[in-house]
């Protein structure tokens, strides 16, 4: 038999000036199951809380209703009071008679009646509350960082420096990502590799970081604090423990004409290679698709020249299992290639390149050693056209968004060009100059004012070749929409930044959501920008949306902060207000029919399949199981379940039904 205590707060005069508190208390005392009812000036004050604590003890209350302000304000206060009195804190409910009553209605009978109704409703609810225990989830204090670009590096270093273990997985043979391909960085023009390389080395040397390059995430199971990750370490055909990075193999390899991915096809590499000289780790891999031995069964020249005998032609992919407590996705982005643009010749003109290719060209370690040269004939371009928003902000191309970094790097390209080709002219076609950021606008002004970049506000409708020149046809919207025709030597397209290849597949492995452009989705666009909807999985860098270096680094440090918080305790305590599937005796085991119509509605992928098997291991039934580590308690599955097999603590069917019943059937 329920023994409910009702505590009506005056809140000074905030409530009592409008609501007749003694009357409400008096009426509430007559509700079935109410054992004690009282009104008091300030329930949340120390004496008020003592009143609650003493009443619980003295009247052996089985639940309390504090009728006062919004539960969003003082629910934790009174739950604590319950706990202090030895009553389960979840046997406390608040009836909101301040924000939802005294402050919004005039004094009078109808307002009193509303207060009474609200109290009755909560009395009926609290009678049906379950005593709940906080959920404790153990935490494995190791983080998985997927992607070794600047965001991954930053996240890994910050987490490792906070004293936690990190496992980093990088798909390419070296970490570094796109930043390692860049020449100089805006708005300071410092050398990208100069600032990145030390950090790459730091990653390799940090004892808390285990680095797997040329590796990919195979599968992820589990939930926050307890993920089991399988990593596929692709065969490098090298014994990494023996390789000393002497480079003899790469020099001797007879295959030399393989387009170099790092140089975006503008240079060549051998079949056994390190992507770039500063690679971390400095261990080559054999590109089996192009290696003579793998193609013809003969060669093995590298093996002959390898002094430490590190070449392993029979090496196989290795699956490594790691247990981690948190995952940071830092898989970065990609850029559209020039072949995406029919109006610019589908990539068939050699002298139309994309921004990333220009970066390599401008880089002192690039294929031209930093000289700006036409790919077609090696001549120095005297007129160069930069096309901003190539593909971005173009719904017709399916990319409605702004790629964000292009305005700045195009300005940088114009400056770099001018520094290298003093007598050259750079034209920039743009839609708007988006230079919001510290020293960013100053930087674009510098390009215009000091380096004489010719900004033309308008888009380029077509580019074609004529007598070895590229004819760029555009409009100048600031000059009466006049057609502009430039006879250029070279064109650089600031192509749209897009989600990285394989992003969708990875999202599915991790059970995190992604948007229509395959960028990973954050849990909340404003308040949870680095979290995903799956607890324990975070996002940093351009895998979320196009970002520049400082933003990526900031997000990465944000993720590291989040993960460090998560790792600050060996157990994770969670509110027990979560959904659960009913269980009954055999032969039904549950009223759940296993239709799994609830599965897609869960924003957290918390609904799993639980197989009920007999002793011989035969499947009897598959049921839905809600992982308490993942459920956040929205209750959408509860309303979708036809057989009412799912319920949610704190808002159970019984509680909600009784509330409605009590409210209306007085």
């Amino acid at each position, binding site marked *: 038999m329920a023994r409910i205590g009702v505590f009506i707060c005056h809140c000074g005069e905030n409530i009592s000036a409008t609501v007749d508190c003694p009357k409400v208390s008096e009426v509430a005392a*007559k509700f*079935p199951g109410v054992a004690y009812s009282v009104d008091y000036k300030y329930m949340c004050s120390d004496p008020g809380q003592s009143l609650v604590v003493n009443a619980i003890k003295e009247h052996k209350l089985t639940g309390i209703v504090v009728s006062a302000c919004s539960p969003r304000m003082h629910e934790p206060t009174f739950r604590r009071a319950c706990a202090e009195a030895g009553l389960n804190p979840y046997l406390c409910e608040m009836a909101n008679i301040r924000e939802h009553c005294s402050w919004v209605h005039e004094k009078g009978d109808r307002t009193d009646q509303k207060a009474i109704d609200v109290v009755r409703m909560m009395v009926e609810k609290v009678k049906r509350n379950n005593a709940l225990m906080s959920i404790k989830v153990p935490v494995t204090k190791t983080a998985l960082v997927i992607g070794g670009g600047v965001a991954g590096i930053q996240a890994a270093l910050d987490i490792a420096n906070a004293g936690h273990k990190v496992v980093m997985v990088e798909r390419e043979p070296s970490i570094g990502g796109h930043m390692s391909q860049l020449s100089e960085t805006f708005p300071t023009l410092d050398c990208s590799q100069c600032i990145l390389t030390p950090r790459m080395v730091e990653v390799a040397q940090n004892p808390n970081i285990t680095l797997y390059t040329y590796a990919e995430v195979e599968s992820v199971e589990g939930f926050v604090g307890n993920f089991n990750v399988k990593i596929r370490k692709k065969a490098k055909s090298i014994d990494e423990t023996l390789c000393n990075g002497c480079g003899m193999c790469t020099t001797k390899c007879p295959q030399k004409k393989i387009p170099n991915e790092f140089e975006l096809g503008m240079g060549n590499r051998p079949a056994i290679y390190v992507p770039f000289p500063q690679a971390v780790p400095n261990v080559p891999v054999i590109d089996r698709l192009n290696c003579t031995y793998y193609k013809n069964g003969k060669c093995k020249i590298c093996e002959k020249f390898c002094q430490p005998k590190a070449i392993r032609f029979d090496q196989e992919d290795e699956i490594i299992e790691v247990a981690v407590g948190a995952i940071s996705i830092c898989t970065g982005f990609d850029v559209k290639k020039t072949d995406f643009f029919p109006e610019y010749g589908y990539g068939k003109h050699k002298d139309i390149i994309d921004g990333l290719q220009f970066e390599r060209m401008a880089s002192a370690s690039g294929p031209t050693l930093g000289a700006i040269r036409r790919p077609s004939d090696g001549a120095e371009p005297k007129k160069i056209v930069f096309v901003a928003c190539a593909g971005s902000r173009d719904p017709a191309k399916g990319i409605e968004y702004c790629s964000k970094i292009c305005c700045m790097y195009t300005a940088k390209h114009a400056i770099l060009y001018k520094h290298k080709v003093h007598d050259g002219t750079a034209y920039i076609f743009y839609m708007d100059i988006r230079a919001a950021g510290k020293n960013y606008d100053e930087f674009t002004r510098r390009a215009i004012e000091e380096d004489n970049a010719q900004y033309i506000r308008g888009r380029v409708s077509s580019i074609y070749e004529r007598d070895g020149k590229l004819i760029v046809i555009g409009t100048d919207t600031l000059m009466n929409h006049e057609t502009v025709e430039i006879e250029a030597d070279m064109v650089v397209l600031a192509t749209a930044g897009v989600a990285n290849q394989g992003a969708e597949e990875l999202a599915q492995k991790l059970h995190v959501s992604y948007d229509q452009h395959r960028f990973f989705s954050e849990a909340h666009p404003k308040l949870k920008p680095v979290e995903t909807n799956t607890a324990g999985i975070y996002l940093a860098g351009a895998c979320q949306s196009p970002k520049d270096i400082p933003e990526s680094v900031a997000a990465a440090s944000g993720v590291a902060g989040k993960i460090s918080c998560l790792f600050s305790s060996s157990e994770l305590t969670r509110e027990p207000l979560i959904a659960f599937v009913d269980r*009954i*005796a*055999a*032969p*039904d*085991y549950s009223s759940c029919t296993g239709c799994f119509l609830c599965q897609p509605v869960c924003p957290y992928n918390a609904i799993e399949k639980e197989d009920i098997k007999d002793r011989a291991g035969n499947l009897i039934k598959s049921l839905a199981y809600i992982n308490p580590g993942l459920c956040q308690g929205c209750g959408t599955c509860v309303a979708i379940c036809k057989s009412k097999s799912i319920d949610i603590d704190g808002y159970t069917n019984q509680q909600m039904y009784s509330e409605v019943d009590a409210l209306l*059937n*007085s």
Partner: protein
Amino acid sequence: MEIINKILDKSSLTVLVEKLNASGKEVYAPVNKKGITEFEKVANLQEMDFDCIATKQSAKSLVFPKVEKLMNFEKTFDDVIVKNVDITAFPEVIAFGTRPCDAAGFIPLDAIFTTDNVDEIFKARMDKLTIISISCKKADDFCFCTSVNGGPGNTSGSDILLTEMSPNEYYAEIITEKGKSILDANAALFKDSAVVDKTPLVAKIEQQFTEEVINEKLKTLFESDIWDTQAMRCVGCGACAFVCPACGCFDIQDETKGKDGVRHRCWDSCGFKLFTLHTSGHNPREKQAQRWRQRIYHKFSYQPEQQKQFGCVGCGRCSRACPSDMNIAEHLTQIAKG
């Protein structure tokens, strides 16, 4: 009481129904509404559907409605005030144009509600019910009354049985005191008659088995797999039980609105899984075959044993209503022959 034999012509019959109505009695008769014939309250004989072999539902709802209020209650702070249904306020009801099988159905139904413990509400309704049946001229493939000790001109259960002699003339057998009181009140409408042989006037229904044989066979069939094979196509609905004149199972349900509430008696069926489901999740009749077996055993073994009364009158309603053509007569024949 000894049966009194009378003759009623059609016009007198019409007058009788009007007079019964005029005397404050509620007259129920088969009425065809949108293609389905059911017992409905009638004011005169024109509304009645004479052609119907059997109404879709039986006449049992006259004494055992699908939902029946047993009592009202009111919760107070620390007590419950109960207000019983006023059984004296029940109306006098005439079931008119019932078939002999319908009338016979009230006997096992009455046995269910009055053996050991008398259900006052049921009894009050039964006491105020008078049954004026009409013998069957026609039968269909589902009729099997002759196999369960009934017949198209059988008098058991009826207070008055009418048999059509010609389109304008009915042979009336006054069987009970209740029947006689109607005769007495309307004596002018009835003409005297000798005993009439009804055999040529009623339908021919072949006997397929006897209840006694079934009863005997069931003694050894409990663990037989015949129930599995028979129940294979059963979908597990309650249509058979709900249209059955002799099924009396019910469920008690309280419904409340605030402090006021009502206790209802609602039809229930042993064909439902929920009928025997325990709170724990255990179900003693887990499979549909077990529920089907229960249906047959209850009617042909338990009821004769406990109430000296078979629980089936051979109206065939269950088989007509069955969505998957479970044919009880066919199944019983199989048992009898097996």
